C-alpha cells in the first residue's frame, strides 16, 4: 500500500479554463492509494509548494503526483520540493494536463475526461515507483568551444578569464569567422577588423586557451561533466612548432587556390595564411592547389623555409581532449543562390552575393576597397535585392534578420565610395534593434531609393550588353518596374553550415528542418540543448546579428561555467540494471547499446551494465527477451501499469 498525494494545478486559467480542476481532484481522491487530493491556483508558487510539503508530512505521503504543466517544465522544481520534504525525488509523477490537455482542447468535457484518464495512468504508475539514488561524479573543469567565429572567440575569452581551461576548435586555418570578412558593421559603422582582431590576438595570447585551428571533431564520448572528445588535426604540411611566421614561403609559391576569405573573387597561394591578420599567423598548404601535390614537383616553399618547417609527409593526427562542457558555435553559411536562376547569380558577372560585396568595400579585399565591377569599371547604378531565398516558402521560410540592416549599410558604403544610384528592393524593412531604426532613417536621408517589391527577375539588357534589368512590381505604386543597373547585390538566406547535421549527430543535438540547432526551450533555455552540458551560441542556432551573437556567447559561457565550476555533480539515476537471475545470456543488450554500457560476463554467463556509461534510453530493456533488464523509472511494470490506467477511462 502506498500513500499518494495528488495536487491539481489551475495554472490560473491556463488549465482551469478547459478542465474542471476541482472535479479532477475529487476524482483523484477516489483512486487507489490516493490519501489526499487538492487543487490550487498556482502549484509552482511558494504557497503551492508549501502545500505539497505540508501534506507530505501531515499525511505521511510516500508518493506525489503533480497534475500541472509538462514535466519538461517543472519536473525539476517539484522534485526539489518533495526532496526537501523528505521524499526521494523519483517518487514524483507529473501529469501533463496543460501542454497536452488544456491548451489543445477547446471543450471542457473532453478536457476533463482526458485529464482523468491521464491522472489514472499516473496513479497506476506511481504505485510502482521506487526510490532511486543519484550518482555523483567528478566534473572536468575544461570547456571545449567548437567554432572560432566571434561567438566562439567571445565565449573562449570569457571562460578563460574565469580561470577555466578552454579548448577552442576551429576547422579553418584561422579564427575570426565571417566577421573577419566584413568591412564595417551596422549600425555604428565601426570597422570590423578593428574590433575583432584584438580579440583574436587575445585568444592566441591567453594562457588558459588552447587554440586548435585546422581541426575537426571526430568523436564525442562521455556525458556532462566528463566529455571525451577526439579532435582530428588536419595535416597542414607545415610544422607550426618550427614555423616562425616569416611567410617567405607564401611569396615564392606558384600554386593558386581560391581565396575563401575573398569569397573566390581572387586567387591566393597554395601555401597561405587566409588573410593578413589571421590567427595564428602560420601558413598551411592547400593540397588541391599545391603544385607538388598535383604534379609531384616544386617544393619551392621547402627550399625557402629557413626553419625547415615544411613537411609534405605530415598526416592527420588525433588529439584526445577531456572537458566538462561544450559550447557549439559553428556559425552559418549564406545560401548558394545560383539555383535561383531568375536572379542570374553565376550567370551575369554584375550579380554579387552579399559577402562578395563585403569584400569589395574592404581595404584588404580584392579591389583594395575600391568598389568596382569585375571589369574594373565603377558601377553607375546598383540594386540591392532583399530576401533572396529567405522569407520564401519554396526555399527558407525564416527571416534572416540581418539582411535589411547590412543592405542599408551597403547602400551607405556604395554612396560613400561611388557616385552610383543605389536602389533597395525590399519586402519590408525590419530594423528592430538598438540604433537600427535611426540608421534606417539616416540611409533614407542619403538619397537611397527604396522600392517595395520582391524582384521577379534579373535579365540582361537587350540594348546595352552587360547591363542588367531588374524587374519587380512596386507594391506601393502598383507599377511594374524595369530598372537598368550595372550591379546587383543579392542578400541570400542565412542557413546552417553544410555539416551542421553531422556536428549535431556528433554532439547529440537535434536540428530543425533546415539544420539549425534546437535549443532546449525557445524562451527559457535558449542556449541549452537537450544534451546536458552542451550549449549553443550564435548563428548555428538561428540567424542573428553580432550583438545578439556576442550576448549569446557570454550567456553560453556562463551556462558552461555553472557546470565546470562544480567539483562534483549529480547524474540522473534512471539507468538500467540486469537482474542476473533472469538473464539468459543472449547478449542482445551488448549488441545494441550505443554507449557500450552492458558487458557480457562470460564467467557468469550474464550481462552486466556499467552504470557510469548508461544514459537510460531503455533500449536494452526492450530487446531483453527475458525481461531481465530493469530500466529504472521506466520499468516494464511501470509502463504497463500506466498503459492500463490510461486505457481504463
Amino acid at each position, binding site marked *: 500500500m502506498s500513500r499518494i498525494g495528488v495536487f491539481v494545478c489551475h495554472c490560473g486559467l491556463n488549465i482551469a479554463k478547459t478542465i474542471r480542476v476541482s472535479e479532477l481532484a475529487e476524482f483523484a481522491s477516489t483512486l487507489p492509494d490516493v490519501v489526499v487530493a487538492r487543487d490550487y491556483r498556482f502549484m509552482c508558487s511558494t504557497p503551492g509548494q508549501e502545500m505539497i510539503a505540508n501534506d507530505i508530512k501531515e499525511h505521511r505521503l510516500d508518493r506525489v503526483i503533480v497534475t500541472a504543466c509538462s514535466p519538461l517544465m517543472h519536473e525539476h522544481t517539484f522534485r526539489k520540493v518533495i526532496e526537501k520534504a523528505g521524499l526521494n525525488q523519483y517518487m514524483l509523477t507529473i501529469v501533463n494536463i496543460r501542454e497536452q490537455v488544456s491548451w489543445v482542447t477547446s471543450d471542457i468535457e473532453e478536457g476533463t475526461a482526458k485529464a482523468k484518464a491521464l491522472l489514472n495512468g499516473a496513479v497506476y504508475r506511481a504505485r510502482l515507483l521506487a526510490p532511486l539514488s543519484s550518482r555523483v561524479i567528478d566534473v572536468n573543469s575544461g570547456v571545449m568551444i567548437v567554432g572560432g567565429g566571434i561567438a566562439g572567440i567571445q565565449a573562449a575569452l570569457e571562460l578563460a578569464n574565469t580561470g577555466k581551461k578552454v579548448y577552442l576548435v576551429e576547422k579553418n586555418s584561422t579564427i575570426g569567422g565571417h566577421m573577419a570578412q566584413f568591412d564595417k558593421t551596422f549600425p555604428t559603422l565601426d570597422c570590423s577588423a578593428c574590433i575583432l582582431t584584438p580579440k583574436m590576438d587575445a585568444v592566441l595570447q591567453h594562457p588558459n586557451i588552447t587554440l586548435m585551428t585546422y581541426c575537426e571533431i571526430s568523436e564525442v564520448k562521455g556525458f556532462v561533466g566528463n566529455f571525451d572528445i577526439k579532435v582530428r588535426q588536419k595535416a597542414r604540411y607545415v610544422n607550426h612548432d618550427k614555423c616562425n611566421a616569416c611567410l617567405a614561403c607564401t611569396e615564392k609559391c606558384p600554386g593558386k587556390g581560391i581565396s575563401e576569405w575573398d569569397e573566390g573573387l581572387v586567387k591566393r597561394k597554395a601555401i597561405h595564411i587566409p588573410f593578413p591578420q589571421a590567427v595564428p599567423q602560420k601558413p598551411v598548404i592547400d593540397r588541391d592547389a599545391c603544385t607538388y601535390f598535383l604534379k609531384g614537383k616544386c617544393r619551392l616553399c621547402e627550399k625557402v623555409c629557413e626553419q625547415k618547417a615544411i613537411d609534405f609527409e605530415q598526416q592527420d593526427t588525433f588529439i584526445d581532449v577531456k572537458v566538462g562542457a561544450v559550447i557549439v558555435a559553428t556559425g552559418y553559411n549564406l545560401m548558394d543562390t545560383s539555383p535561383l536562376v531568375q536572379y542570374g547569380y553565376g550567370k551575369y558577372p554584375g550579380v554579387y552575393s552579399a559577402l562578395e560585396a563585403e569584400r569589395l568595400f574592404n581595404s584588404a579585399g580584392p579591389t583594395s576597397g575600391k568598389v568596382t565591377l569585375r571589369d574594373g569599371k565603377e558601377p553607375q547604378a546598383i540594386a540591392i535585392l532583399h530576401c533572396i531565398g529567405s522569407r520564401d516558402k519554396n526555399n527558407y521560410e525564416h527571416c534572416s534578420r540581418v539582411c535589411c540592416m547590412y543592405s542599408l549599410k551597403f547602400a551607405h558604403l556604395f554612396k560613400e565610395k561611388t557616385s552610383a544610384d543605389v536602389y533597395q528592393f525590399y519586402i519590408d524593412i525590419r530594423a528592430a534593434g538598438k540604433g537600427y531604426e535611426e540608421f534606417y532613417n539616416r540611409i533614407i536621408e542619403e538619397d537611397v531609393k527604396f522600392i517595395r517589391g520582391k524582384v521577379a527577375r534579373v535579365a540582361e539588357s537587350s540594348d546595352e550588353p552587360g547591363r542588367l534589368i531588374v524587374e519587380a512590381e512596386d507594391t506601393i505604386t502598383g507599377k511594374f518596374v524595369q530598372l537598368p543597373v550595372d550591379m546587383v547585390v543579392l542578400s541570400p538566406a542565412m542557413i546552417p553550415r553544410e555539416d551542421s547535421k553531422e556536428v549535431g549527430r556528433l554532439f547529440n543535438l537535434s536540428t530543425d528542418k533546415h539544420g539549425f540547432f534546437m535549443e532546449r526551450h525557445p524562451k527559457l533555455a535558449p542556449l541549452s540543448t537537450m544534451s546536458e552540458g552542451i550549449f549553443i551560441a550564435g548563428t548555428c542556432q538561428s540567424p542573428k546579428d553580432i550583438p545578439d551573437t556576442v550576448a549569446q556567447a557570454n550567456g553560453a559561457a556562463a551556462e558552461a561555467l555553472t557546470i565546470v565550476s562544480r567539483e562534483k555533480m549529480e547524474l540522473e539515476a534512471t539507468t538500467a540494471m540486469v537482474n542476473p537471475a533472469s538473464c*539468459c*545470456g543472449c547478449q*542482445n543488450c551488448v549488441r545494441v547499446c550505443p554507449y557500450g554500457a552492458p558487458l*557480457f560476463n562470460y564467467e557468469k554467463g550474464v550481462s552486466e551494465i556499467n552504470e557510469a556509461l548508461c544514459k537510460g534510453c531503455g533500449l536494452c530493456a526492450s*530487446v531483453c*527477451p*527475458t*525481461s531481465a533488464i530493469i530500466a529504472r523509472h521506466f520499468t*516494464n511494470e511501470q509502463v504497463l501499469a500506466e498503459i492500463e490506467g490510461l486505457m481504463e477511462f
Partner: protein
Amino acid sequence: MTDFRQIENNLKKEAKRLLEAGEVAVVLAYGRGYDEKHPMPFAAKTIADVESLVFNEYCNFNMASYLMRYPWGTKIAIAAKAADSRAIIQLVQEEKVRREDLVILGIPAYGMKNQKTNEVVDSKTTGGLYNPVIYDILLGEEIHGQKIVSPYEVLAEYEAMDKEERWAFWKSQMDKCIRCYACRKACPMCYCDPCFIDQNKPRWADKAPQSPGNMMYHLTRFHHLAGRCIDCGECSRACPVDIPLYLFHKKVAKECEEMFGQAAGMKLEDKPVLVDFRVEDSDKILE
C-alpha cells in the same frame, strides 16, 4: 540422393571415428525409439552408444536445441540437416555456441516425414534447402536438381485471406493452445531461461490457457523469433494440438527477409536483424 540407410551407416562410421579418436565428447544425433517411426534425439557418448544411432525419414528433430546443454569447450559432433545447420549458424551468431567446438555432420535430405501424419514436410519446413548450409563432414552426396520449393509458398493461401478470416483462423488456433510450451521446448532458438511468459515481474499475460494469455504469449514469441527463426518446423510438429505455428514464423521470416535483406542462419558473420540496423533502412517498412 544418398539413401537414408547409407546416411545412417555413414553417421555411425563418423560418430565412431570421432569418439574413438577423442575428437568429440558427444555426438548429437538420432537414436532408436519404440519403433522405426519414432526415432528420438540421442546423445552418443561412448562407442557402445554408436550402435543405437539411426537415421530415417522421421528424424526431424533439430538437434541444435541440445547444443546449449554443454558448456563452451565441450567438443560436440552434431547431425545437421539443412534447417538444423541454419540453427547452428544462428546460435553461433548469438554466441550461444562456438563454431570451433563443433563438428557438423551434414545430412543432405528430402522426403522427410511428419511422425504423426506421415506427410512429407519438405515444402513446409526445409527453408527451401536440401543441403546443409554449413558442415564439416557430409554424410551423403549433395542434392542437386531436386525441385526447390520456396519456403514461403505455403503462405499464399493465408496471405490471400482478408483480415477478418485471418483473425478468425488465428483466434481459433490460439484458443486451442494448452500452454504446454512444447513449441518453445522444441525450438532451438528458444533458449531463454526464464521465458518472459514465466516472469512474475512483470506479469506479461495470464498464465492460464485462455485466449488473451495465449495470444500474448504467441505474438510476443513471434516477435522474439523474428529474424531468428530458421524454419525447421519443430514447433508445429511438437504441438500436441496442431497449431500451425510454422506459418506465422514463416510469414515473419519472409517480412524480415524482404525488409532487411537477410535470412536467419545463413552466414556466420551476420548479426541478428533485430539487434542491428542500417542507416539506410527505409521508413516504408513502417507503412
